[in-house]
C-alpha cells in the first residue's frame, strides 16, 4: 500500500458541482441544504431535492429580511 487517500470520482464531481453552484449565483443557503443532502446520502430523491430547495430559499429570505 502506498498510504495514499483516494478522492473518489464521485466526490470530485460533487466538489466541483457545489463550487459551480456558487458561481451561478445560487443562494448559499440553498447550496448548503443540498450539500447536507449529499453528505447524508439522501440526494437520490426528487422529494428531498424539492424540500431542500424550498428550505434553502426560505432560509435565504429570512437572512435577507435581517
Amino acid at each position, binding site marked *: *500500500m*502506498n498510504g495514499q487517500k483516494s478522492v473518489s*470520482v464521485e466526490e*470530485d464531481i460533487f466538489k466541483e458541482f457545489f463550487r459551480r453552484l456558487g458561481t451561478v449565483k445560487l443562494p448559499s443557503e*440553498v447550496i448548503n441544504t443540498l450539500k447536507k443532502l449529499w453528505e447524508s446520502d439522501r*440526494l437520490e430523491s426528487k422529494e428531498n431535492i*424539492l424540500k431542500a430547495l424550498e428550505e434553502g*430559499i426560505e432560509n435565504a429570505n429570512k437572512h435577507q429580511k435581517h
Partner: protein
Amino acid sequence: MGKSLLLRGENGTGKSSLAEAFEFFFTGGLSVFEGKGTQSLSLQKHMPHKNFDKDNVVVAVTFDPGSIALERTFSDQPAPPKQLEDYFQAARRGTFILRRAQILKFVVSVPADRFRAIASILGIERLDNVELEMKRAYEELDGAVCSKRDGIKDTFEQISTLLRKRTTNAKQALDFVNKSLKKAKMTTLRSFDDVDNIEDEMLKTFKKSADFEHVTKLNDVLGKLKLLRVDDEIAGNLHALNKKIGPFLEGNARSELSLTEFLVKGLEAVKDDEKDACPLCGQDVSRQELLKQINERLKTLSQLSDEASEVRQISTETEEKLSSLAGKIEEISEELEPLDELKNKRKKLLGISKSLKKLAGEVNSAGELEGKVPTKAFDQEMTKLEKLVKASAEKCQAMLEKIGVPKDWKSKVQTVSLINQVKSLVGEVAKAKESLKTKEKHSALSKKVYQTFSKVKKAKIKEIYDSITGNVNAFYSMLHPKDAHKNIELNIASGRRASAELKMESFGSKEDPRAFASEGHLDSLGLCIFLAFAKRFNGPCNFIVLDDVVTTIDAQHRGRICKLLSQHFKDYQLLITTHDAVWFEQLCAHQRAFGIDGSFRNMEIVGWTLETGPIIEPYKTRWDRIEARIKSGDKSGAANEARRYLEWVLRKICVAAMARPILKEGRYTVSDLLTPAKERIKKLIKDNDFRERVLKGFQELEATVIMGNLLSHDNPEAENTSTVEVNRFCEAVHELNNTFTCPDCGTLFKYYQDMKRIRCPNSRCKQQIDIACK
C-alpha cells in the same frame, strides 16, 4: 508492501487459482462464474476443491507493515483496520485483475456496455440516479409553473367572458366593471372591496332582504355554473399520455437498453425459482429483497430515457388541470350547500369531483410508467358534468323566477352578482400570481441545479476519458513504437447520455480498432486500457494481477511489456502468471536490467496433484538447476542441461556478434554454432584482455564439450565419466555465458556495428562496459 510475484506454470497446474483466491478475498465472488452461459456454475458448489466443500474454503492474506492477517470464507468477510479501509474499498471492485479471457472485453463491447463498465470502475453508477432525480424535480416545478400560468390565463379568460370584453389585468377588469355600474346607474368602485358597500346599500332599499340574499346567492351560483369550463387540453393530454406510455408498458423501449433486457430475464429467473439463493452464484440472498432491487433498477433505467421525461411532463400538467377542475367543482358544491333544492345535484357534483381526483392519481401513476389512464372514464364523467351543470343552472333560474325579483332590480342584482364573481376571480389571480412568483423562483433554481450537475458530470467524465486515453496512448506506443495504428480515443458518443466509443487511427483514418488491427494488437490494446484504468482509478490499491495475458503477443512485444511494467508500475505490487518460459525469462532479465529483482519473487509450479494442488518452488535459473544436478550426482541430467544451455549461449553470441553459421533448415546445434561463434569473436574483438578471456573460454569449452555429447546419448562410455569432468564442462559453459553478460545487470552484450563497440545495451546499467572492436 510485500514483494511482487512472478509465477510460471504449465497449463492446468493452478496458476489462475492464485489469481482467483485474491479475487474472492477482496470481492467475495469470482467473475469467471458470472456472465453469459454461467447458469450451471455456482460459486459455492464449484469453487471449493473437489474433495472439500464451501465450509472448508479459507483465503488468508497478511498485510505489511504490521503483519495484519485477514481471512475470507463463505460466511465471513475480512474486516480491515482503518489504515487498510481505502485499500479494500478500491480492491472491492475487482478491477485489479486482468485475465486472458477479459483482455478483449473492453475493446469488443458495445458503447453502452463499455460506458457501464467504465461507470462501474469509476464508481459513478449513482450519479445517473442523482441526475435523474434533479431532472424530475426541475420538470415538476416547471410543470407547476406552466400550469399556474395557464391557470391565470384561464381565469382572465373567464373574467373576459363575464365582462364580455378582453381583459388581461385587474385594473382593466375594474374599469370594465365600473362601465357596467355606470350603465346600471349605480355607484362606481374605487376597488373591488367597495362592492360590499353597494350590497349594503341595496339591502337597505330592497324590501325582502332575505330574498335579496337568496337572489344574490342564486345569481352567484348561476354565474359560476355558466363559467365552469372543462379545459379541452385535458382529453388530448390523456390520449397522448396513453400513446407515449404504451411502448414502456410493452417493453419495446426497454429492449433498447441491453442491461434492462438482462434485468428483465433475471427478474423472471428469480420469480420462478422459489429458493432464497442467487441464481447466478448460489449465495444465500433474500429473494424478496433481490426482486425489489431488480424492479427498482428497471424503473430507474426506464425513467432515464427522454421519452419517459416527456411522459412525466404531460402527466404533471394534466394532473394539475384535473385537480384544478375538481377544485372548482367542489367550490360550486359549497355554494350549493345552503340551497336544499339542489341537494342531490350537489351530491352528484361532489361525486364527479372525487372521480376527477382519483383520475389525477392515475395520471400521476402513468407519469411513473405504472399504467395507462382510463380515458373512457374521463369522457363519461365530463358528459355527466355537462348534464348536471345544465340542469343545476336551469333549476337556479327557475328558483329565481319563483322569487320574482322586480324588473328594475334584476339588472342591479345581476350586476352585483357579476361584480362579485369578477372580484372573486381577480382575487384568485392575485393569489395565483404570488404563488407563480415563488414557483418561478424555485423552478429557475432547480433548473440551475440540474443543468450545473449535468454539465459538471459530463465534463468530468470527459476529463477522465481524456486522461485514460493519454495513458493508453503512451503505453500503446511503448509497445508498438513505429506502428500504423495510433491515436487511440475514448469518447462519450455524441447525442447519447451513457455511451463510450473507442476509436483508433489506422492507415490515416479513425476506425473501430477491430477494423484493421491484428489479434495481437487488439490484445495489447486491451492490456494498455486495463493498465491505464488501474493506474488512474485503483487509487490506494496498488496491487495488479496479470493472469497469463500475453498469449498472442510476439516475443519482441512481450519484451516491451516487460519494459512498460518496469518503468510505469515499479511502485505496484504485481502478481504475474504465465505458462510461457520465454516471457518468464524475459521478465526475470528485465528485473535485473531495471534493478528491481530485489522486489520480485520468481516462482515456478513444478508439479500438481489433486491432493496437494500446485507445488510451488522458487525459480531456479538454468545454472542453479545444473548445479543442483551435479550436487545430487545426476551427471547425465547436468550435462544434458548444460548442452542445451551451451546451444542457447552460442545462439545468443552469434546473434549479438553477427556471426554467420552455415545456413540450414531445422535447429542449430552446438557443432553448427561453436566454430562460427569463435571465429567471429576472434576477428571482431580488438580489446586484448577481453579477447583473451573469450578465447580461453572457447578453448576450455572445446576441451570439455565431449561430456555433453557423451552424456546426452545412450553411450556405454558415459558410465566412465566423472563428476569432476562433467562439472568442468558445465562451468565452461557458464563461464562463456558470464563473459558475454554484464556483471552488473545480467544483460547480454550487444555489438554496435556503427560504433565498432561491444556494450551493455541497458542504459540504466552502472557498469558501462565498453569493448573495442575491429
